[in-house]
C-alpha cells in the first residue's frame, strides 16, 4: 500500500492534488476531537464575523465558529459515506459474485433486479422516504438507506470481473480438486475483485455524500446534525447571501469542492492504476 502511494505520488499529478485535498479534509475531520466548541451550542462567539485569523471561516448568525462547525460537518458527511459504502459493498459483492459464478437463471434474475435498480430514480424515492421519517432520520439510517440503493453499478462490474475469472485455469483446478464454490469465490476470486471494489467505493462515497447534500438542502435529513448539506440548509434558512454573510455559504461550498474534487481525482487516478496497461504507459516503461 505504501509503495503504491509513493509510486502514484511520483508519477501522477492528479493523485498529488487529490492527496493534498483529502489530507486537508481528513485532518479537519480529525480535529473535531480537540474542538473548543460544541457544534450543538449556539452563541458561543460573536455573530456574523467575516473570516479572520481567529475564525478562519468566520462565524455565522447563530454565533458558531464556522471552521469548527465545518470540521464536525466533514466528519459526519464522511461517516455517512462510509456507512453507505459498507452496506452497498456487501450487497454488490454478494450479487456480483453469485450472479457471475452461478450464471444461468440465477444470473439473469439477479441482473434484471440489478438493472432495475440502476434505472430507478433514487432521489424521488428517497425524498418520499425522508419525508415520512422527517425528524426521525438519523445519520446511520440515511447511510444504510443510501447503501440499499447504491449498489447496482458495482454489482454489474463485479459480475463481469467474475465472469472472466471463472474461465481462468486456476478456477478449473480449484473445482477439480474439490474446492467448494463458497471457498472459490471467497478465497480465489475475491482478491481479484477487491481492487475494482476499492476504486468504485470512492465513486460511491461521492454519490452518497452528494445525495446527503441534496436531501439536507430540502431540509429532509436530521438538520440538527452538522453535515455539508445541513451547513448549506442553515445558511439558506438564515438567508445568508441576502444578509451579506457570504462566508456562511462559502465555507460548505469550499469544503464540498475540496472533498468532491479530491475524491474524484483519486478515483480516476486509482482506476488507471488498476489497469496495468495505462500504468506502464504513464511510468514510461
Amino acid at each position, binding site marked *: 500500500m505504501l509503495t503504491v502511494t509513493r509510486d502514484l505520488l511520483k508519477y501522477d499529478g492528479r493523485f498529488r492534488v487529490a492527496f493534498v485535498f483529502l489530507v486537508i479534509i481528513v485532518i479537519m475531520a480529525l480535529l473535531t476531537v480537540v474542538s473548543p466548541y460544541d457544534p450543538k451550542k449556539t452563541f458561543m462567539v460573536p455573530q456574523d464575523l467575516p473570516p479572520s485569523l481567529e475564525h478562519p471561516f468566520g462565524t455565522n448568525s447563530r454565533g458558531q465558529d464556522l471552521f469548527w462547525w465545518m470540521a464536525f460537518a466533514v466528519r459526519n458527511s464522511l461517516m455517512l459515506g462510509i456507512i453507505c459504502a459498507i452496506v452497498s459493498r456487501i450487497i454488490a459483492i454478494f450479487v456480483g459474485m453469485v450472479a457471475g459464478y452461478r450464471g444461468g437463471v440465477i444470473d439473469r434474475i439477479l441482473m*434484471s*433486479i440489478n*438493472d*432495475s*435498480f*440502476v*434505472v*430507478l*430514480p*433514487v*432521489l*424521488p*424515492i428517497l*425524498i*418520499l*422516504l425522508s*419525508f*415520512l*421519517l422527517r425528524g*426521525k432520520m438519523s445519520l446511520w439510517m440515511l447511510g444504510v438507506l443510501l447503501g440499499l440503493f447504491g449498489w447496482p*453499478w458495482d454489482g454489474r462490474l463485479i459480475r463481469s470481473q467474475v465472469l472472466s475469472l471463472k474461465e481462468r485455469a486456476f478456477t478449473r483446478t480449484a473445482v477439480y480438486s474439490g474446492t467448494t464454490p463458497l471457498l472459490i469465490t471467497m478465497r480465489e476470486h475475491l482478491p481479484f475483485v477487491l481492487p475494482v471494489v476499492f476504486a468504485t467505493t470512492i465513486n460511491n462515497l*461521492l454519490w452518497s455524500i*452528494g445525495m446527503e*447534500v*441534496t436531501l439536507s*438542502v*430540502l*431540509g*429532509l435529513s436530521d438538520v440538527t446534525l452538522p453535515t455539508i448539506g445541513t451547513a*448549506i440548509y442553515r445558511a439558506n434558512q438564515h438567508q445568508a*447571501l441576502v444578509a451579506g454573510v457570504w462566508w456562511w*455559504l462559502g465555507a460548505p*461550498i469550499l469544503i*464540498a*469542492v475540496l472533498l*468532491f*474534487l479530491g*475524491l*474524484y*481525482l483519486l478515483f*480516476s487516478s486509482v482506476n488507471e492504476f488498476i489497469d496495468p496497461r495505462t500504468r506502464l504507459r504513464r511510468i514510461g516503461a
Partner: protein
Amino acid sequence: MRKFVLNYLIPRILQYFLVIFLGVTITFIIPRLSPVDPVEAQINRVMMSGSQVSPDAVISLREALTEMYGLEGSPLQQYFAFWGRLLRGDLGPSLATFPTPVTTLLARAMPWTFGLLMTSILISWIVGNILGALASYYEKNIPIQIVDVLSQAVRPIPYYIMALLLLVFFAYYWPIFPFSGAYPPGTQPNWSLSFALTVIRHSTLPLLSLVLIGVGGWFIGMKSLTSNIISEDYVVYAENAGLRKNRILSQYIMRNAMLPQITGLALQIGLIFSGALIMEVVFGYPGMGTLTFQAVMANDYSLIMGITLLSIIGVATMVLILDFIYPLFDPRVRHQ
C-alpha cells in the same frame, strides 16, 4: 427479424415492466414501514392549527384520510387497490391545494422539466462526445487539453452546489441572467415569440448548470473509448489509404465509439433526472423539482407520492425509448 424481436425487444420490454413493478412496489411499501402514521399525523396537524373541530368531524376526517391514503383492508387488498388507482391515472387530490388533483399539478410541471432535461441531455451528450473524440485523436492540442482538465474539475461537483455557484456569479454579482423562474412573474405562458425568448433567457442558467456537469462524463467516456479504437487495424488502414483525418474521426472512430455511450446514456438518465430536480429548486424553475420542494414544505404527502410514481414511470419510459432507438445506430443488433 424474428430473432431480433425475441432476443432484443422482448427482454427490453420485460425489463421495463420489471422496473415499474419494483418501483411502484417500493413506493407502496415505504410508507407502510414508516413508524409515522400519515393519517394520525395529518389529523394532529389539523388539530394543532387551533381550529375547533368536533369529535364527530375528526372521526369522519379519519375515515376520509384512511380511504385517501389507501389504508383500508388487508395489505394485499391495499396493494391491488394501489395498482388499480395508478392504472386509472388517479393519484388523489393534493393535500396542500385541496381539491386540485395531483395529476393536474403534475401535468402543469412536467413539460418544463421534460423540455429542460431533453435539451440539456442532448447538448451535453453531443458536445461531450465530440470533444472527447477530438481530445484523444489530437492528443497534443493545447485548447483541448485545457477543456479536458476543466471538464474533469467540474464533473464531480454536486448539482446543487454547481447551480448555486452559477446563480451567485451570474445573477447576483454580475446580473446578466434573471434570478429565478422560467418567465417573469405575472406573465401568462403563451406561444408568442417574445415569450419564448424570455423563457430561453430564464432557462439559460439552469441549462448551463446541467450541461457543464454533464459534458465531463461523456467527454471522459468518449476519450477512453476512442483511444482504444485509434490503434485498431481498420483505422491504421484508413490512415494509410490517405483518407482525410476528419472523415476517419467521424466515420471510422466516432461511429464505433458512440454505441457504448448510448448505452451509458440509458444508465445515466435516472441520475441526470435527480440532478435536474434539485437544480430546479435553486433556480425556482417551475418544473417537477420545484413542485417537489413545495410539496415537502407544505407536507403534501399525496403530491410527493404522485411525483415519485411519475418519476419512476417517466425515467423507465425514457430508457425504453433509448433501447428502441439503439438498433438504428447498431446494425449488428438489427441483423443478428
